[in-house]
């Protein structure tokens, strides 16, 4: 109880509230701009949060991402372009609704169910983390090894349409993570005599490169294609929400539930949650023939799911230090920078910070209702910001942000190189998310692997002997068998399966 009071005291201060409001505006803008994602918002925020206390820093990230995931729904309805990948699953449906003249209802449903789904995600986060943390205290290197492997497997297996390229991307990320002092023996690897590379690949500039610079490179070649929003006035967006709620409350609960599950799974986040819950909604609907024609049902499911996934993704991040999606991958980096090493011990050492995160999450979701409404009302102006002005500004911001992280040009060089690498990878159909996860988890993965190998003295059976480790091992192996089976069945992996692009 003490910790909760302390946490509230840390949050309800004018400075922190200002940070939260400003990041909310930032998140809404970035989310609503096509091509700028919630992950990118986080990566661009980190250099600024670097100079803040832990609570406002985490508050900024939590708020900005929650807002961005919702705001991604706005251009989906108005332009038929998802603002963030998390809205891609139901973009066509939303746009079809707008064309039928139901833009108001669509935006209202998106806003209200984003808020409610987000709150469910937070509720589960609050309930689940302390319980899991108690179990996690007794984890040894074997459990961590399997957890990492499970997370990395999920990233490849669930999040990509070409498992082979996903797997290659993961290995690339892990290999890049090898740069620097090795975690077992302390020998510098692949540093080429550079002192700065001894500390490893500086994570934030790499992320800025992979998520922002690569996006700018893609954007500048089509900068003259400024999309034109629908000429439809936004009226009262809250009319008719009650009817939708009464009719589709089960869809809302199911969508939020799926969102929580997918979000909590290491390696998959809001975008996957939206795709899966939309598919589930269609499958179990009484009127599946209406899907795709501007039907609200699937939108209720998936717009709840992507926001609930966002909160749930923090579960593995806080408890095990294993990111639930690419946003929490960055968060883990921030936690380390702030000296709050994620893992079960953070609940004992700094419980007030954990409670602060919970409170901010609730606050951000509640704030989403008025701020989201304001964003919808001003969406036409926002969407008119010309991309040829925006992209150079983002690029300069990336440069300064990367520089701020290392206080040297190394950050900018790293950012540029990773930006080009990520651009090349995406051009060739290699998904970026697995590489990011590999880069973040690399050290923990190698460390737990090496420690386990040394403990087991080469007897691989020891990896399966502890009960939880054994269970995780079976789970991971099942995923691998499934993945190989799928690869075998489709054989010509170039054909796109039912799974969406990550």
């Amino acid at each position, binding site marked *: 109880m003490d910790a909760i009071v302390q946490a509230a005291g840390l949050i309800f201060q004018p400075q922190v509230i200002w940070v939260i409001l400003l990041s909310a505006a930032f998140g809404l803008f970035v989310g609503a701009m096509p091509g700028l994602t919630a992950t990118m918002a986080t990566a661009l925020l980190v*250099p600024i949060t670097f*100079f803040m206390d832990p609570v406002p820093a985490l508050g900024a990230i939590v708020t900005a991402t929650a807002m961005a995931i919702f705001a991604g729904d706005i251009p989906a309805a108005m332009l038929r372009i998802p603002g963030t990948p998390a809205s891609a699953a139901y973009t066509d449906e939303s746009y079809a609704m707008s064309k039928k003249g139901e833009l108001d209802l669509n935006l209202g449903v998106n806003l209200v169910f984003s808020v409610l789904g987000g709150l469910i995600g937070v509720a589960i986060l609050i309930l689940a983390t302390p319980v899991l943390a108690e179990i996690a205290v007794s984890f040894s290197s074997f459990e961590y090894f399997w957890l990492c492997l499970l997370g990395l497997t999920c990233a490849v297996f669930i999040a990509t349409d070409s498992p082979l*390229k996903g797997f290659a991307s993961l290995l690339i990320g892990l290999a890049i993570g090898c740069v620097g002092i090795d975690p077992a023996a302390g*020998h510098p*690897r692949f540093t080429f005599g550079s002192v700065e590379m001894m500390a490893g690949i500086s994570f934030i500039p790499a992320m800025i490169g992979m998520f922002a610079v690569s996006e700018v490179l893609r954007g500048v070649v089509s*900068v003259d294609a400024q999309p034109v929003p629908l000429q439809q006035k936004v009226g009262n967006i809250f009319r008719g929400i009650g009817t939708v709620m009464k009719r589709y409350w089960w869809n809302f609960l199911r969508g939020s539930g799926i969102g929580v599950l997918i979000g909590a799974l290491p390696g998959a986040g809001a975008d996957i949650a939206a795709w899966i819950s939309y598919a589930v909604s269609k499958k179990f609907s009484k009127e599946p023939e209406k899907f795709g024609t501007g039907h609200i049902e699937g939108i209720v499911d998936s717009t709840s799911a992507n926001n609930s996934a966002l909160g749930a993704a923090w579960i593995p991040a806080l408890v095990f230090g294993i990111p639930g999606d690419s946003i929490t991958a960055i968060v883990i980096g921030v936690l380390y920078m702030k000296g709050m090493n994620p893992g079960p011990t953070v609940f004992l050492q700094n419980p007030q910070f954990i409670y602060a995160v919970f409170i901010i999450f609730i606050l951000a979701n509640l704030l989403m209702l008025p701020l989201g409404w304001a964003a919808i009302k001003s969406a036409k102006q926002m969407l008119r910001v010309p991309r040829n002005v925006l*992209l150079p500004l983002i*690029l300069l911001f990336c440069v300064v942000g990367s520089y701020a992280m290392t206080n040297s040009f190394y950050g900018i060089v790293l950012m540029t190189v990773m930006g080009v690498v990520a651009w090349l990878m995406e*051009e060739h159909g290699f998904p970026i998310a697995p590489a990011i996860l590999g880069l973040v988890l690399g050290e923990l993965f190698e460390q737990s*692997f090496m420690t386990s190998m040394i403990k087991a003295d080469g007897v691989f059976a020891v990896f399966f002997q502890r009960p939880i480790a054994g269970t995780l091992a079976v789970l991971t192996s099942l995923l691998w068998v499934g993945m190989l089976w799928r690869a075998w069945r489709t054989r010509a992996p170039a054909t796109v399966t039912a799974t969406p692009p990550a």
Partner: protein
Amino acid sequence: MRANDAIAGLVLIILALGMILLTADFPSFPGQKYGPSLFPRILGTGVIICGVLLIAQGIMARRAGAPWVEIAPWVTDGWRATSFLLVLAMLLLYIFAADSVGFIPIAILFLGGLFLWLGVRPLHAALIAPAATLAIFWFFSSILRVPLPRGILTNIL
């Protein structure tokens, strides 16, 4: 621009071989079976396996009529291709010149150059580039205390 999977696979194999080669002079410690080279070697082997599979996949696609290299339309469009290269050129310019010239002039050049090339009206560009530069400079160097290079303006600021 998209190269055939076989080319991507080949590049991956070469990179992985290079990585494994570099692990050759990593030390091993007496009485310790697993050294710093183990993990990178496992990864390298994995990448090579992926590379081989990608080559197989690429050759199959080639037999089915896919080209070795597919050129995206923007590559042959002079303006778009230049936009792409200009972004990279501006980043390099910043990396090599910002320290001696200073953040403010380089950033104005950086923004102004990109604005004009991407079709922002000259008057707008002339206003936004310096204003944005000064705002970013003020925010990062005064509020966040990031030592942005001052260059030729060292004595003035």
